[in-house]
């Protein structure tokens, strides 16, 4: 998810007759060969598809004029939803940051025993969808609801989004800067706060952004916890009137919030760039000795994992043991199969779809490339139901044969989840030096062949993390699937939702268990699918 910054130690100068080695010449613009037109066209097409729902929603919202749209926005209910949404996002982001950074620091930078165990345990919550988690918590604590309930459950579900990139960065952090800070007289704690955190900032912001965007689009967990936000309100609108203008207006407001979040992240990131991997060796960070605090730290992490994975595991296990009476086992097979199939197809298509834009960004970073990337982010911040309704409108009106087919569902998944894969693909491409492609060309390969023989194989592993993220997201997607799935198709998530909506825990448990089992191996990929450092 992040590229580790490493500093190139200056080589000591040799004897005078041979001048000391100087840094290699900067090879700036690689536009000599230029970004091929088909690549730009492909990136544009992807952005266009992602932008379609935005356009449809905006048109729908302003169909009856701006005044009418304003009247729908300017009412107490919208204020209430805004307050709820903002307080949820702020609180959960803060708590996720504290939990994620704290845990990452304990695991990667202290003498805490069992780091490799904790690394897995603290990513594992990602295998439990938030709405399954809320189901588990509701079953355990029936009164859990409202802001408190929503913040607790979403924080426990989403903090790994912060933990994962921050831990990866802390693990690869160069000790040099921190040593320098220590030498300047800062204590270990202040050193971490002033130097470590500063270096961690891009990774932290990336993680917090993910949490915020997830929260904006979260439906299942919040509905179950009786905490209305824009997304649940849009769903309510959908339920009362399918494709209502009021729903579209709410969606436009939600887009505004998403734009705000994206802009804030961009501003906070400032000029901090991902440093290129240099050839100098990274000095492994020294770990802070915890001493007597060890047991306290262990207790903290144990509590965190118990709450984040223990509760859902216990809850699902308990209801699973009573499932035999409620469950028609015949259903689980086909449901699992269609979930698997949809997840695989959508993950492959999404990963492939990221390539043009990711390539452009990693290689040239033109305004066009950045615009394409931001458009995909924006579309993906819409709740599934909005994208689904836009696609329904489009397919009913324009491409009727596609209406209610799996193809449209896959398109929706691509729109919703492309940023997850984009981040990974970008990093994977950036990690492969463009010079390798040049080398292949001087060895007689045409550009496409050079890509297939050299660059693609090198990028493949890096893109796996994105693939995994999309797969998990698809298997747990709820609202778009409910609307767009072909008649008769259900996924584990929708089947779980059907059962859990009637609070039939026993019937829901097998689907929840299947969801977790399906997602679990992919957390491994998230941990180990990182790019190998390029040879330098």
């Amino acid at each position: 998810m992040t590229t580790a910054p490493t500093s190139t130690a200056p080589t000591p100068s040799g004897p005078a007759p041979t001048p000391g080695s100087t840094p290699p010449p900067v090879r700036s613009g690689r536009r000599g060969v230029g970004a091929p037109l088909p690549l730009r066209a492909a990136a544009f097409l992807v952005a266009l598809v992602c932008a379609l729902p935005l356009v449809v929603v905006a048109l729908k919202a302003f169909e009856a004029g701006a005044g009418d749209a304003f009247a729908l926005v300017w009412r107490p209910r919208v204020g209430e939803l805004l307050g709820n949404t903002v307080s949820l996002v702020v609180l959960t982001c803060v708590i996720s940051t504290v939990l994620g950074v704290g845990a990452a620091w304990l695991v990667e930078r202290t003498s805490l025993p069992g780091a490799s165990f904790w690394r897995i345990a603290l990513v594992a919550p990602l295998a439990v969808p938030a709405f399954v988690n809320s189901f588990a918590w509701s079953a355990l604590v029936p009164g859990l609801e409202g802001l408190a309930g929503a913040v607790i459950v979403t924080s426990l579900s989403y903090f790994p989004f912060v933990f994962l990139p921050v831990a990866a960065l802390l693990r690869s952090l160069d000790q040099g800067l921190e040593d320098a800070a220590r030498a300047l007289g800062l204590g270990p704690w202040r050193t971490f706060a002033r130097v470590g955190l500063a270096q961690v900032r891009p990774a932290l912001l990336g993680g917090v952004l993910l949490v915020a965007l997830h929260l904006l689009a979260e439906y299942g967990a919040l509905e179950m916890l009786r905490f209305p936000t824009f997304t649940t309100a849009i769903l309510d609108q959908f339920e009362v009137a399918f494709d209502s203008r009021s729903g579209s207006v709410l969606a436009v407001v939600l887009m505004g919030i998403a734009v705000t979040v994206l802009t804030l992240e961009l501003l906070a990131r400032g000029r901090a760039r991902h440093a290129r991997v240099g050839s100098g060796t990274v000095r492994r960070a020294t770990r802070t000795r915890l001493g007597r605090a060890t047991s306290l730290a262990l207790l903290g992490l144990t509590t965190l994992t118990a709450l984040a994975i223990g509760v859902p595991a216990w809850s699902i296990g308990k209801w699973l043991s009573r499932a035999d009476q409620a469950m028609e086992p015949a259903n689980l097979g086909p449901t699992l199969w269609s979930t698997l199939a949809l997840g695989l197809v959508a993950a492959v298509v999404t990963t492939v779809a990221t390539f043009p834009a990711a390539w452009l960004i990693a290689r040239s970073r033109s305004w066009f490339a950045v615009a394409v990337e931001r458009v995909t982010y924006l579309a993906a911040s819409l709740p599934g139901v909005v994208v689904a309704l836009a696609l329904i409108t489009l397919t009913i009106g324009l491409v009727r044969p596609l209406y209610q087919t799996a193809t449209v569902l896959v398109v929706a998944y691509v729109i919703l989840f492309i940023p997850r894969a984009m981040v990974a693909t970008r990093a994977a491409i950036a990690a492969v030096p463009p010079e390798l492609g040049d080398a292949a060309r001087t060895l007689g390969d045409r550009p496409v062949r050079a890509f297939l023989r050299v660059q693609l194989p090198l990028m493949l592993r890096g893109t796996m993390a994105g693939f995994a993220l999309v797969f998990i997201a698809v298997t747990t997607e709820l609202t778009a699937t409910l609307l767009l799935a072909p008649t008769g198709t259900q996924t584990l998530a929708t089947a779980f939702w059907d059962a859990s909506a009637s609070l039939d825990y026993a019937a829901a448990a097998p689907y929840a268990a299947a969801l977790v089992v399906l997602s679990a191996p992919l957390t491994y990929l998230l941990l180990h699918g990182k790019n190998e450092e390029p040879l330098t």
Partner: protein
Amino acid sequence: MKTLQLSGITASHSGTPVLHGIDLVVPAGSTTAVLGPSGCGKTTLLRVVAGFLRPDAGHVRVGDDVVAGPGTWVAPEKRGLGYVAQEGNLFPHLDVAANISYGLPRRERRARARVDELLELVGLSGDLARRRPDQLSGGQQQRVALARALARRPRIVLLDEPFSALDPELRVATREAVAAALAHEQATVVLVTHDQAEALSFADQVAIMHEGRLTQVGAPVDVYRAPSDRRSAVSLGEACFLSGQLRDGVVTCALGALPAPLASGSGACEVIIRPEQLRLGDPAASPCVAEVTRTAFYGHDALVELRLDDHAGDRANVCARTLGSETPPIGSRVSVRVIGEPHVIAIHEAPSLATAETEPQN
């Protein structure tokens, strides 16, 4: 083995001009080193030749074929060139054998004989064939990169600072192995480097580049002995510059009257003397006496900075190279004697007030 010919090459990076009318002929089977500091445009020149960058104007000819010119553009993969970059750019996902055979036709890729032959050519053991690039040392990587480039028997081999990332000792050994392999293949070679020793020892022809222009092209000995200007002189090694007066084949400067039979004309001029041309001795031995102001000791030799005694109000500084064991102490007085002929540039027919100085070395 083909002649490489560049004429009037102008090129730019994202709108900024980098090369301004480069003319260069690399005769078939010979080696030319393009020498210049970072950012002078030498890598850009190589990328133009390789086909990664289109020149704005000018021609690139390989043998009789124009590969780049107005209306003509041959893709890199069709130019039949070998290219070795500073980092080697071995494919990390392929082992050594697969890297070397990468450019070969499919059926030849399986044959180990060619891989072994190439490994031997670059002075590596056949045992390395199954290693992955990250299991090789830097020098080995560069040699494998060369073997990979040579596998297709390129007409011309381009080397982009291939040794600069290596440790000094490894640099020399690798350079010698590469030179031997290239000689064996009788390839036409262009080496881009900022290392004067590398350029002088490796090449049949040195081209000095400065801010996108070639300032001097010639055989290493000629360019070293007779630089066309201060910059050329400095880029090939330490040099002292003194102002002088040339008349009838004798140049008069702070070091006295020195014979300069090759210089023609008369008037104010600039005299270039290499530190190794100065011999130090007992102050009584010569009329030209100086005080040691600084020394830099390198072990095998040393550079000694000297302030020449007042010479008609002109306190000139020069720099001499001595054996390390004979480094004089700072503050001591020595006599200075010039061996061989000084090189005279910038002759102005009108006499002018002379100032002498020592060009600082990088």
